[in-house]
Structures are given as structure tokens and as C-alpha cells.
């Protein structure tokens, strides 16, 4: 099955969603900052909002086609939707929530379907409970089960796991993957979490200002951003201004000089010319910290600096290292203690060539 979307929808005088893509069976991650049009896209597919122009079709069956005056009502679309706030019916038990869309079945058939999906999602023991009396992760599973049990042709998920801890997220992602191995329907999964994108996505569609800004595998879109705004979205903490000083085509690398610091970094060779002003995107977790000048490393970039600030945030310690410009580095609390990292201490940063992503700075 495949979902074909080409629509325009004007949300305000200054914002128009204008996207065209085909989602094959499997999970397509819809990634983007808030206000980029992700939720609107899902609402258009579900029929909760009408587009101004264009067509949405599942395997050639039009759900909406503005030119042909087709607009199938949401109940007839066979599009499952898991809302960000879940929208479980508070007055119904988990079982009645899951069975809500199955009223055409006989009571016995409905019961069988509810039990089967509850088993596979590990919620069989709480079928008699109302949403208010179960945990967040359990509610999430009920919400997923309620949408999946109706056997939709397309599944839409609007940040369904954003409120959960990582462990619960991983388990639900595994359940969802297992479910779709058998069904093979197109799933549009809205998130702004890279973890979820990498764990679930076969493909990432990056929305920016209502347009598809990038489209490819999670690695291609999120790990090798081509554009500064993409890098920012993809969670690159460091975006450093730089100028290309040398291209070494035979080595497949180039050298860039950071603006405001007399520091050269080696990066993968990209289609920039010497003298181009670019930015270098580096993840804070991809930078190593050494308290002595390291030797004999394969990593090409070793830069001296001073710890300017240090703060703990949950399981990570954020270091701000001054190398002429501030650079954010994440280390573990244990590393901080073992190396006796503290403000004012001189350190060396070690960065692999392929952890430095040159992006155009426009």
C-alpha cells in the first residue's frame, strides 16, 4: 500500500503548507520544528482539515481531490490517527476504548480482536480500567491499540511517545515495528526526537516552513545535514562559523578555519570552494575531552581549550569549552569526576573528521 500526498493548504496569510510526496509501506518520519506544518499534514490526511488544492490518495483511492470535488468524510477514510494527547475516551474502560471502532463486528468477534491486540501490546491485565487509572505508558499503548485494531490503510502518529521515558519508548517502538512487519501499511510518524527517528524510520521527511526541506534515510537527513537550519533541527549543539581554507581532493577532506579562533579543523570534502563562508555542525556528544595532550590518535582534530562553564543535566554534564569560540561538549558525570573536570581547567578536544559536518550558512 502507498500513500500519495500532494496538497496546498493556506493556514494563515503567512503560512502555507505545500507538500508532495509518496509514502510507501513502512514508517516515514515527519520531522520538523514546531510550527513547520507536521500536525497540519496529518490532519489533512485524516480529513480533519480540507486542503485548498491538491489530492491525497491511498493506492489510487482518492481521500480528497479538490479538482474532482472528492472529500471522503473521516469515518470512511480508513485512516488511523494516534493523537499527541491520545484522546482516549475518559468514560470508557481500556477495553471499550480499544473496541470503540469495532461496533460493526459481533460482540464475540469484537471481544476476540480486543483480547488479541491487548495481548500483543501487553495491556491485557488492565482492560477493565479507565484511562485515568492507568500509567502514561499504558495509556499510550491503549491509544495505539485503539487505532491499530481497526486495521487502517494508513496510520498517523502525532508525537505519540513524546511524554514517555526512553525505556518505555523503546518498548512501544518495538511493538509498533513488530505490528507493521505483518501489515506493511504506510505510517506517518511525527516527531522531533532524533532517537525515535533513528529507531523507527526507514525514511525521514523534514518539514520546514510548510515545505519538504529534506527527504531521505535518517542517516542522510539527520546525520549529514546539508543546511544550517536542518542541522539545528537535527540537534547539532555546535554550529561554528568557518571559512574553507583548503581542499584536499585526494584525501577526501578539506580544512576550514573557525571564525574568531585561530583553529583549523579537518572535515569531509564537500562541494564548497576555498574562501566559502560555511558553518561546521558538531554534536556535543561526538567530542572527546582529554586533560593531557593526546598522542597517537587517528582523530585528526585536536584543539586546546579551557573549561568556561560546567553544568549537570540529568545523566549528562554539559561543558562549555572556550577554544576562541565557545563549544558545547557532553560527558558523563563519572568522566567529570575521574578527570576532575572543573571550570578554568585546560583541556584538549578530540574531534574525528567525520564528526564535523560542513553545512551552508544561509
Amino acid at each position, binding site marked *: 500500500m502507498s500513500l500519495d500526498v500532494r496538497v496546498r493548504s493556506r493556514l494563515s496569510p503567512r503560512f502555507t503548507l505545500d507538500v508532495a510526496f509518496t509514502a510507501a509501506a513502512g514508517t516515514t518520519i515527519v520531522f520538523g520544528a514546531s510550527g513547520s506544518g507536521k500536525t497540519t499534514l496529518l490532519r489533512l490526511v*485524516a480529513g*480533519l482539515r480540507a486542503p485548498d488544492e491538491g489530492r491525497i490518495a491511498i493506492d489510487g483511492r482518492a481521500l480528497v481531490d479538490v479538482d474532482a470535488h472528492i472529500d471522503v468524510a*473521516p*469515518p*470512511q477514510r480508513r485512516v488511523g490517527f494516534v493523537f499527541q*494527547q491520545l*484522546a482516549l475516551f475518559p468514560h470508557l474502560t481500556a477495553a471499550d476504548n480499544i473496541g470503540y471502532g469495532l461496533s460493526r463486528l459481533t460482540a464475540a468477534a469484537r471481544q476476540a480482536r480486543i483480547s488479541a491486540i491487548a495481548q500483543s501490546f501487553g495491556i491485557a491485565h488492565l482492560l477493565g480500567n479507565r484511562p485515568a487509572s492507568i500509567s502514561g505508558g499504558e495509556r499510550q499503548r491503549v491509544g495505539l491499540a485503539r487505532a491499530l485494531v481497526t486495521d487502517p490503510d494508513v496510520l498517523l502518529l502525532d508525537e505519540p511517545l513524546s511524554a514517555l521515558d526512553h525505556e518505555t519508548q523503546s518498548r512501544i517502538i518495538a511493538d509498533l515495528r513488530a505490528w507493521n512487519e505483518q501489515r506493511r501499511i504506510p505510517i506517518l510518524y511525527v516527531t522531533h526526537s532524533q532517537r525515535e527517528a533513528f529507531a523507527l524510520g526507514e525514511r525521514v521527511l523534514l518539514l520546514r516552513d510548510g515545505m519538504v526541506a529534506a527527504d531521505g534515510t535518517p542517516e542522510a537527513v539527520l546525520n549529514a545535514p546539508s543546511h544550517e537550519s536542518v542541522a539545528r533541527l537535527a540537534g547539532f549543539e555546535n554550529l561554528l562559523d568557518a571559512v574553507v581554507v583548503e581542499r584536499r581532493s585526494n584525501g577526501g577532506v578539506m580544512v576550514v578555519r573557525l571564525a574568531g579562533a585561530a583553529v583549523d579543523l579537518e572535515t569531509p570534502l564537500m562541494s564548497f570552494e576555498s574562501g566559502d563562508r560555511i558553518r561546521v555542525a558538531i554534536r556535543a556528544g561526538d567530542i572527546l575531552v582529554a586533560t593531557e595532550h593526546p598522542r597517537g590518535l587517528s582523530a585528526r582534530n585536536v584543539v586546546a581549550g579551557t573549561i568556561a562553564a560546567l553544568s549537570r543535566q540529568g545523566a549528562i554534564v554539559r561543558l562549555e569549552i572556550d577554544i576562541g569560540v565557545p563549544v558545547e561538549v557532553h560527558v558523563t558525570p563519572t568522566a567529570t569526576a575521574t578527570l576532575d573536570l572543573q571550570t578554568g581547567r585546560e583541556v584538549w578536544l578530540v574531534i574525528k573528521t567525520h564528526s564535523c559536518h560542513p553545512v551552508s550558512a544561509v
Partner: protein
Amino acid sequence: MDWSAIALSVRLAAIVSAVLLVIGLPIAYWLTFSSSRWRFVFESIVALPLVLPPTVLGFYMLVALGSRSPLGRAWQTWTGHGLAFTFEALVIASILYSLPFAVQPIAASFAQIDRTLLEASATLGVGRLRTFLRVVLPLSIEGVLAGAVLTFAHTIGEFGVVLMVGGNLPGVTRTVSIAIYDDVQAFDFASAHRTALLLLLFSFAALASVYALMRKPWAVAPLS
């Protein structure tokens, strides 16, 4: 105490409450969920009896129900007698007069329902009528009951419209508030006291049950 007047008032209030429940639900639904730009006009019409003097409403009702009006004539041909000064006229007038007391609490409780629940229902393949029965109604049952109780209480106590449209025919249009008025006119203060106290207690009990149902302060203020 004028038991026949009390019985008449209770019968009137029961009929009016039942009818208003049936027509109040769709009106409240439309007022809550419609995106029509003319919604404010209909909201104003529904709320009109709250501010209109009962005599004004009663006067227009009398004109509309009289033997020279199309409705009055149709009634005359159909039943063989006029509509004005009958129990049926009281019912029609009371329905209009109590409309906001039924519609507003119901609409207020509809408005508190998370719209996403209705969207979730639609994406699960369930149409609007079934969504109304399975989600909207169960989640606003307190407001619906409050609307019914308020309508009942308001109809029991109405006076001006009844006097205009129904007159004062014992056993036909003589309601409990008219009975009190008559007692006072006849200086029968003891009888007036008894009936008035009964109405007072009843009204308090009705309001207390509404507030207990809604569990929110001032939930039934007419224009809330």
C-alpha cells in the same frame, strides 16, 4: 392548598421538560459545534426569554396562537377549538419561555468536551450521530440533567406568560403561581403562605441538585 393547581403545574413542567430535552439537545449541539458566522444571532434568539418581560413574550404568543393567526386557525380546524387559553397554549408558550434554561446548561457542558475526542471518534470510523450518543452525551450528562431540572423548576414557577396566554381557568390553565396570586388577591394569606413555602422549598431543592450535579460554582448562571 390548591392541589389541582399543583398537579397542573407539575404536569405542565414535566411535558415542557421532556419536549425541551428533545429539541434542546440538537439546538445546544448546533450552538456549540457550528462554525456558522450567524451563530451569535441564534444564541441571542435562544437567550431572549431571559431578558424579555414575560408580558411581551406572552403578548406575542397570544397573537401567534389567536384564532386570526395561521397557527391558531390550523389548530381550530384540526381540533375544533381555539388554542388561546388552553393547556396546549401553555405548553407551547412555556417551551419558548424556558428554552434558554434547557439549552444553556447543555451547551455549556458540550463546550467543555475536548474536541479531539470527537475527531478521534471520526477517525475510528464512527459517524456524528453515534459519536453524539457514545461520547458527547455520556460526557455531558450532568449538564443535560441540569438543563432538565432547571426547565422543570422554571416552568413550575412561571407566572407572567401563563397569565397572558392561559388566563386563569381552574384545572386547565390555573398553575400554582397563579393560585398564590389569587389567594393574595382574596386575602387568604394562610393558603398563599403554604403554597409559596412549598414552591420556595421546591426551587431550593431543584437548584441544590443542579449545583450538586455540576460541581462547579455558578455553573448554571443563565448566561455563563
